[in-house]
């Protein structure tokens, strides 16, 4: 029953936000219909662009659940995981692609399996390191900038992860 209650809360929470955005669209349509249509088309384009990544995320969610049992997740990424947990979070964040929000469902699942919130924060922070975009960044800002910012970002991710652990005390 508790689980059913939680699901009910999740459903209402998951509907509240899109309904608020729909209300914004309604207001926007009253004042500027053409811009609202343009916004809808822009949103559709974003959705079309990220659709393949969403499929990859669902598959990854399934694979992590399949391969990483709650016991294993707790061992690799829990309080006793040590430097290996941080390393996994850093590498995972750097290699993950697509918009940040497509990773939330997978991260929630990992959290439910006992992964520490600090590691999730480090994962999310390291998404700032975009390996495929490094050539573009170098073109605009040069190699020293890219190297400096990458190193500082990784260090900051650890700092943020530790701060989250201290502030949340391992809870989420």
């Amino acid at each position, binding site marked *: 029953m508790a689980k059913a209650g939680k699901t009910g809360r999740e459903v209402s929470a998951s509907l509240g936000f*899109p309904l608020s955005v729909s209300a914004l669209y309604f207001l926007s349509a009253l004042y500027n219909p053409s811009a609202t249509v343009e916004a809808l088309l822009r949103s559709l384009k974003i959705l079309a662009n990220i659709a393949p990544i*969403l499929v990859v995320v669902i598959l990854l969610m399934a694979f992590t*659940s*399949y391969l990483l049992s709650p016991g294993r997740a707790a061992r690799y990424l829990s309080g006793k995981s040590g430097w290996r947990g941080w390393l996994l979070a850093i590498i995972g964040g750097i290699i993950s692609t697509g918009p940040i*929000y497509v990773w939330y*469902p997978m991260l929630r699942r990992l959290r439910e399996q006992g992964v520490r919130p600090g590691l999730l924060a480090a994962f999310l922070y390291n998404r700032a390191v975009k390996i495929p975009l490094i050539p573009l960044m170098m073109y605009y800002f040069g190699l020293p900038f890219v190297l*400096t910012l990458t190193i500082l970002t990784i260090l900051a991710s650890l700092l*943020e992860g530790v701060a989250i652990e201290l502030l949340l005390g391992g809870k989420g």
Partner: protein
Amino acid sequence: MGRAERKSFLRVLINAASSFALGFPILLGVILLMGLLGTLIPSEWLFKVFTANPLWDTLTGAAVGSIAAGNPINSYVMGGELLKEGVSLYAVTAFIIAWVTVGLVQLPAEAAFLGGKFAILRNGLSFILALPIAAATGLILSPLG
């Protein structure tokens, strides 16, 4: 992989898809909000908010980067253009780093999936960290010209 294991994976896959579907309306809300903001707020607006004060501009860069959403490519292109326009490297760095680490548009979705306290703390800390990162990057690179 045996038949029983394959069945088990299929069950895990269906479970993952249902879990994802439960959160999909929130993702849809984020996408729709990004579409609306991207249309109603033109990118030229960015160039008007920076002054010549590096300290104030760094804070502004982090603030604008936190509000902005979308592909990080846009932040590099805009950051490069801002740099050409004479905006300080501190401000541009804060803008770029906040763009990817802070997400005010995605905050409701992050809170729904990972908890409100976690989402607010993470985004707040990311905003604060954008400032020393920008300062350190500027200080390290200034001797190199």
